[in-house]
């Protein structure tokens, strides 16, 4: 266990993620040295931004509550033991549809949840950036689709996303940097269904290598993606932005849990208080960026309340913690005549975004995509037991059909609602800090959306040859809680992630999303981080930091 409890990135060196047992140099700052940026969190938001800011010449210290893994030697092909990748500190989950937290929507470690994400790398439908004015629901983003399109391309190249030459939906884009992967049988089930119903499908654009890249090998289709890639094919933040950030002089502090942000007498952010190696330490910084995702970001802002800001930092709008969105992640499952063996290859190898780009025939606002699936045994037995209520002999009989099962699972948009939110609970965590209380209920529109998806996916699976079809409800991904916007009254930060209340306090993660969209969020979070990094460099050049 010691490997997980003792910081590795110390004394001028950090783990070399590309080689077993190896180290690489890392620039280190002392706590008393005032760095340009202290970043809390190293996932899709914080890790990406750390790279961009360091490459722009800023001094950067990025802290993560979890360990700095070397996947080649630390990740086993074993669901049970890889539980170590999730954020499993105490949290309370309530509302009418309480979210299952942990596996599906969190990460604790350098690289954040991208270490175990499904690598699905999708752009937003362009209209979603103006969904209020263009489509009539949700809220507008303060950034334009045209600008985001450029940043999407930057991220896809940074991750060497493998995808089709021509992606069937949305405005034209260049071909993906790496060729698409061969679609497995589970994905071909989706293809059959889509073709039978007359809608388009595509190999899913995935951030896992289809050809060698530097020290990393192509994907070997081992299928354990959601518990961490042990062959380094997955282009997580840990393998992409973090090594670049280190090359550019950033310091990464692993196992560093930030407890609080402290302000100076003028009401500007001055330092972060953090726990590392059994000590409570402080890091001075000219700017502080919170990048802890949709639960930990508002929690830290609340836990940093002070006499000047009794309701938490950056919260004059009262919107911190509100408008939490989880995407509907309902699935249909069915038994195929053929052997499918869906444990092989990345789980979601085929996709259709038909219902993201088609507005006709919908009785709801928003969109959804759906993908093929390949759950590992523990994930699967949890679906079978919770979705069907099976146990005893009936459970074992159902599980024995494992290699014949196929499924389609949606990623569906949910509407922002102020009733869905993160607040503080009475309970405290291992550091004595109040934990997050998460409240989530599907709204009427959300329900119409997933009912539509279940109906359509059920038809598609049946048309593909699926029998004994049943469905399961669920959620995945988080967004919202620190909305970005154009005005201090209606948002927490501006388009640059900069707090309206505290000018040297920034937010850079999925909590910025005004709407969730109907695609997995990681590509958009990274694109936003690239944009924020460029904006900060520009503001610095103009002396406006």
């Amino acid at each position, binding site marked *: 266990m010691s490997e997980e409890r003792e910081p590795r990135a110390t004394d001028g060196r950090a783990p070399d993620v590309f080689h077993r047992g190896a180290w690489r140099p890392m620039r280190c700052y002392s706590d008393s040295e005032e760095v340009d940026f202290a970043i809390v969190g190293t996932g899709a938001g914080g890790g990406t931004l750390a790279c961009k800011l360091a490459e722009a010449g800023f001094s950067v210290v990025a802290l993560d509550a979890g360990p700095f893994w070397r996947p080649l030697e630390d990740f086993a092909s074993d669901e049970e033991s890889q539980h170590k990748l999730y*954020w499993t500190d105490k949290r309370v989950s309530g509302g009418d549809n309480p979210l299952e937290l942990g596996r599906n929507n969190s990460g604790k470690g350098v690289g954040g949840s991208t270490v175990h994400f499904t690598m699905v790398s999708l752009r937003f439908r362009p209209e979603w950036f103006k969904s209020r004015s263009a489509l009539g629901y949700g809220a507008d983003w303060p950034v334009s689709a045209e600008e985001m399109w450029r940043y999407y391309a930057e991220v896809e190249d940074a991750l060497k996303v493998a995808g089709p030459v021509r992606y069937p939906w949305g405005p034209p884009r260049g071909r993906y940097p790496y060729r698409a992967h061969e679609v497995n049988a589970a994905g071909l089930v989706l293809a059959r269904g889509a073709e039978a119903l007359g809608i388009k499908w595509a190999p899913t654009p995935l951030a896992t290598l289809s050809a060698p890249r530097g020290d990393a090998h192509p994907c070997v289709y081992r299928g354990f993606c959601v518990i961490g890639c042990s062959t380094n094919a997955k282009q997580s933040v840990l393998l992409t932005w973090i090594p670049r950030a280190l090359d550019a002089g950033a310091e990464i502090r692993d196992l560093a849990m930030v407890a609080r942000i402290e302000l100076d007498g003028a009401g500007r952010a001055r330092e972060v208080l953090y726990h590392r190696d059994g000590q409570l330490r402080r890091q001075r910084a000219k700017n502080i960026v919170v990048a802890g995702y949709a639960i930990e970001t508002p929690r830290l802002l609340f836990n940093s309340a002070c006499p000047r800001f009794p309701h938490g930092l950056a919260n004059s709008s009262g919107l911190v913690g509100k408008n939490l969105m989880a995407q509907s992640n309902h699935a249909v499952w069915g038994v195929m005549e053929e052997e499918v063996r869906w*444990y092989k290859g990345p789980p979601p190898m085929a996709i259709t975004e038909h219902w993201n780009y088609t507005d006709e025939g919908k009785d709801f606002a928003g969109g959804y995509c759906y993908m093929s699936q390949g759950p590992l045994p523990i994930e699967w037995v949890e679906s079978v037991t919770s979705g069907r209520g099976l146990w*005893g002999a009936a*459970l074992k009989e159902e*599980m024995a059909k494992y290699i*014949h099962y196929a499924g389609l699972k949606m990623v569906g948009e949910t509407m922002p609602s102020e009733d869905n939110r993160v607040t503080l609970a009475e309970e405290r965590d291992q550091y004595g800090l109040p934990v997050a209380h998460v409240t989530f209920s599907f709204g009427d529109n959300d329900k119409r959306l997933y009912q539509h998806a279940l109906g359509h996916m059920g038809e598609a699976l049946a048309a593909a040859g699926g029998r004994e079809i049943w469905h399961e409800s669920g959620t995945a991904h988080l967004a919202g809680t620190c909305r970005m916007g154009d005005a201090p009254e209606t948002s927490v930060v501006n388009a640059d992630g900069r707090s309206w209340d505290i000018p040297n306090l920034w937010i850079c993660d999925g909590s910025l999303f005004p709407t969730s969209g109907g695609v997995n969020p990681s590509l958009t979070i990274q694109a936003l981080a690239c944009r924020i990094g460029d904006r900060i460099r520009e503001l610095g050049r103009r002396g406006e930091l």
Partner: protein
Amino acid sequence: MRAPRFPGYNVLDKRDTPSWNEQTRRVVDKRLHEVPPRRFLTPEEWTMLEAISDRIVPQSGPANERVPIAPFVDHKLAEDRSDGFRYADMPDMREAWRRGLAAIDDESRLRFGAPFVELMPGRQDDVLHLVQRGEVRSPRWQGLPPSQFFKSRLVKDIVNVYYAHPKAWNEIGFGGPASPRGYVRLGFDRHDSWEAEERDE
């Protein structure tokens, strides 16, 4: 359709092949050879958990060839290894298990006049079905929603242990650990020579 079977397939045969890396050998070996001792549950609770596990995941064959369930559930509780949250209407994991076992036992006594472990298996199933459906009478369920406890705690923790075991992987034809060697044949009705062969009996 009839459930497929995989006679002769054993994922452990791949232990010393390129399908298993060192760290995987370490964690699976430990699971197979270092069954944790009882630390959290009382002996009575432990016995009851064993009886419940037999109903949730029935196993045939001699006792020493079965997947041990209670030791690993107890280990999780002793380590307080949380899922990452508790439902607002549920106590935390340890308390849920303590109170849930006591409530199931009380339910058995109320309904069938005997502690759970003394009931016939069919009767034990009756008790578990009542709990699953939330049709309970014991006052011990106060503050512990029975259906929620059954689904998100009791069944989940038990099946998680069972399906983390190579025996369970063999039963369902799962390829088991695969790193650095993954798979080559991905299409319908295709499998590599190091995968389970499905045979119609």
